[in-house]
């Protein structure tokens, strides 16, 4: 009789242990899923923004281009686009009209300046990334 009850107690303990182990394993799996999901999300966002920037569609740099166009006028912008920095040359791989002017306005630090020799006093524009 007592042997039976102790065996039953052992079974119950083993069952409880197994349940606890299952709960712990599930918690570990959830934590791993969240970590993996976060890393994947970060990678996707990084890649998306990187491509956006590299193709000249970045919102901050597009605003730069718009400001440069507004202030310096079309002729100044054209002359500025011929004076590209090495980094902006590569940015101008994008073939859109907006990216053409934005690439002209970029400097490596993200600070943008568009200037023309003809109208340097008027067209020198400095804008910021946000």
């Amino acid at each position, binding site marked *: 009789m007592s042997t039976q009850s102790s065996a039953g107690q052992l079974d119950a303990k083993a069952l409880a242990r197994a349940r606890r182990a299952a*709960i712990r394993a*599930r*918690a570990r799996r*959830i*934590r791993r899923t*969240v*970590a993996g999901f*976060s890393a994947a*999300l*970060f990678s996707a*966002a*990084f890649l998306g*923004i*990187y491509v956006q*920037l*590299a193709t000249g569609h*970045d*919102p*901050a740099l597009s605003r730069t281009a718009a400001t440069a166009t507004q202030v310096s006028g079309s002729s100044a912008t054209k002359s500025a686009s011929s004076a590209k920095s*090495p*980094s*902006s*040359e*590569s*940015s101008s*791989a994008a073939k859109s009209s907006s990216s053409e002017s934005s690439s002209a306005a*970029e400097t*490596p*630090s*993200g*600070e943008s300046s568009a200037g023309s020799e003809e109208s340097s006093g008027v067209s020198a524009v400095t804008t*910021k*990334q*946000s």
Partner: protein
Amino acid sequence: MATPQTALLATATGPHLYWIASRAAGIVALLLSSASVCIGLLMGGRLVKGRKPDLRVAHEALSLATLAAIAIHGLTLLGDAYVHPSLGDIAIPFLGSYKTFWTSTGIVAFWALALLGLSYYARTRIGAQRWRKLHRFTALAWILGVVHALGEGTDAGQSWFLAMTAIGVVPALALLASRWLSAPSIPQPGGAR
């Protein structure tokens, strides 16, 4: 082997890598915090039956991942050559000169989220009831974070960003509104953490 185009792209985007990383981390933080708020409200509002231990683990993991993402969001800015903030600029509200109001909103949101979130591990000292009351303010910190993202985010005007934010934020806001509208005056034992 890198092609000339790849090399040129790397040259162009190289100086912006910290900025890109910061933006990406900010997006991750926004989405993870929204998911965490959703799960917390689902748990507290008794809207999901069963699976509560799993939800609590997910809520905790998402909250910790959010804090990590915000830390990355701020710390990577230290390497940005344009804004070039000091540690104080990104950690102390109203200290930096760059978009002071919006930046401060984000800093306050981070500290509030960190303090209110991590207080979970000290709830026995604080007292469960008091801690539960405190934890409700996490939603306000999250709202501050959303305001920071929409006010200062570089991509805030982009349709993809607005759509993504809406997908993450609107369900949480709806749950929050339903919770506030049907707020029980007496805190329920064993409610939301």
